């Protein structure tokens, strides 16, 4: 049975707490993008994906997901743990020595739920397209999801992949761009203005949808459901997910400052006060 909106909202809040506590504990990691994508991950793993309870690398006959902007690993790990892939208590090992929860996701440590290493940007879309084509060869009608950062689109490999997907009609993939408009050095428009991404993706032959309220769980579910309906139509599908970096914590929003910075004790307390415990901390 699918969870109701309140249950999903509770999970989103708990995920935000996990993210904040994880990066605070090791005084490193990337809270900004992680907080902004909490609704996306919860919607994906709790509602959209037709996935198996156990993890197998091959992911045959189930929907699979790839994270290209690997630095938002805190939200990925939190949602994987809270979706049953590994014990929630393991979140306490994030970025520590001998942990399966590396700073950026890796398959090397055999963490259930992770199918490729990411962190060096711009590589995830190609991998997702390869996996999508393998699904077609295997007569597997399930989908491949991939999340990309917007700053990451400055990497050229993405555009090779975008061109390839349309030319080869890879229509069993749903790519999502986390459009928070910020990267390490500042607003994406100032660092390297990419113009209209919608126009660019459409010119590259993709079916493009927008989710204007990327931090509204119902809007995200509705948008991704619409994207799912567009698959199998000879065109790859792209979702522009408008999010707020640092969403859920007032002093982390409207700035790129929290891209890769952990809160201190006082800031953590303030941030957690804005996200009261719902499902129990790890």
């Amino acid at each position, binding site marked *: 049975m699918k969870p109701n909106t309140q249950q999903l909202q509770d999970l989103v809040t708990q995920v935000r707490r996990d993210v904040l506590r994880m990066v605070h504990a090791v005084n490193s990691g990337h809270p900004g993008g992680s907080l902004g994508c909490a609704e996306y991950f919860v919607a994906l793993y709790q509602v959209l994906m037709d996935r198996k309870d156990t993890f197998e*690398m*091959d*992911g*045959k006959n189930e929907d*699979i997901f*790839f994270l290209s902007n690997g630095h938002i690993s805190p939200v990925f790990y939190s949602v994987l743990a809270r979706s049953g892939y590994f014990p929630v208590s393991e979140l306490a090992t994030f970025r520590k020595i001998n942990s399966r929860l590396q700073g950026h996701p*890796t*398959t*090397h440590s055999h963490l259930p739920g992770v*199918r*490729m*290493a*990411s*962190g*060096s940007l*711009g*590589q*995830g*879309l*190609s*991998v*997702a*397209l*390869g*996996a*999508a*084509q*393998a*699904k077609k*060869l*295997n007569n*597997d009608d399930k989908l491949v999801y991939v999340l990309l950062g917007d700053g990451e689109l400055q990497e*050229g*490999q993405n555009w*090779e*992949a975008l*061109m*390839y997907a349309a*030319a*080869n009609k890879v229509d069993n993939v749903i790519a999502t761009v986390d459009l928070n408009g910020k990267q390490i050095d500042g607003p994406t428009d100032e660092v390297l203005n990419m113009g209209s991404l919608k126009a660019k993706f459409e010119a590259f032959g993709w079916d493009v949808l927008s989710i204007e309220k990327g931090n509204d769980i119902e809007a995200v579910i509705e948008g991704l459901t619409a994207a799912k309906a567009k698959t199998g139509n000879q065109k790859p599908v792209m979702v522009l997910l408008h999010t707020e970096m640092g969403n859920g914590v007032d002093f982390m929003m409207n700035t790129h400052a929290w891209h890769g910075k952990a809160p201190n004790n006082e800031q953590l307390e303030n941030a957690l006060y804005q996200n009261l415990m719902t499902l129990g901390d790890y």
Partner: protein
Amino acid sequence: MKKYTNLGSKDTRSGFGAGLTELGKKNENVVALCADLIGSLKMDDFKKNHPERFFQVGIAEANMIGLAAGMTIGGKIPFTGTFANFSTGRVYDQIRQSVAYSEKNVKICASHAGLTLGEDGATHQILEDIGLMKMLPGMTVINTCDYNQTKAATLAIAEHNGPVYLRFGRPVVPNFIPEDMPFEIGKAIVLSEGTDVTIVATGHLVWEALQAAEALEKEGISAEVINIHTIKPLDEETILKSVAKTGCIVTAEEHNYLGGLGESISGVLALNKPTPQEFVAVNDVFGESGTPEALMEKYGLNAQSIIEKAKKVIARK
């Protein structure tokens, strides 16, 4: 010494093409990707026989490596094909993160390696690729010496679970490895036994090493010729056993001496049995345009050079 005859000169890349054609028939999980060099890589037959398993990616090597990594998820065994330069240096980070670190079963198949690419010049003549690939944890690195060995290696790597870099070349060269010789990844082949000097060669230099050994024999020098096709993992046992007998070694490869086979062997010798060694390799410079023969002579990568280095290293014993 044991003599080898040229069974009829062919290019090593055709050995790759023939191996891939055979794999297409016998292993339905094998898929092939190419970055606009189907003819050069001899992938035409595979493409014709299995269009659904062949992926033309265009001039976009980074995407090709990523696609290949993704295709392994679902059980495919991807073989990527382009020139050695574009198979390694151009896509190093993609191979590092999406293939090697992610432990994906991708076979990176690289033609036109080294100086013997010829007239196109240094932009295309990579002499650093073995080094780049051998430094990646978990990567198997193979450099084949003729048509038969390249075909056998192509078949063998499909059975090996893990990332592989398979390096071969453009020119037509002697084909002398018996067709029925088994190809065992990581196992050196003692082509001819000898007692005065060990000559270890890989790739196009193997035939040259055999020619050098024949010439040395006429001068009363007994050379042991070993073909190392797998540079990583290296067959240390065979090398150490040989130098225990000969007391000196010449390594020969179509690669920069930095990062190549010779360097790997130096490490083995330093740790186990310090032994005089001479390098037949490119001396840390870029190549240039010219015929393969002219280039190999100018850069000292031929039988004559091996003979000279063999005499030099024997004198150092």
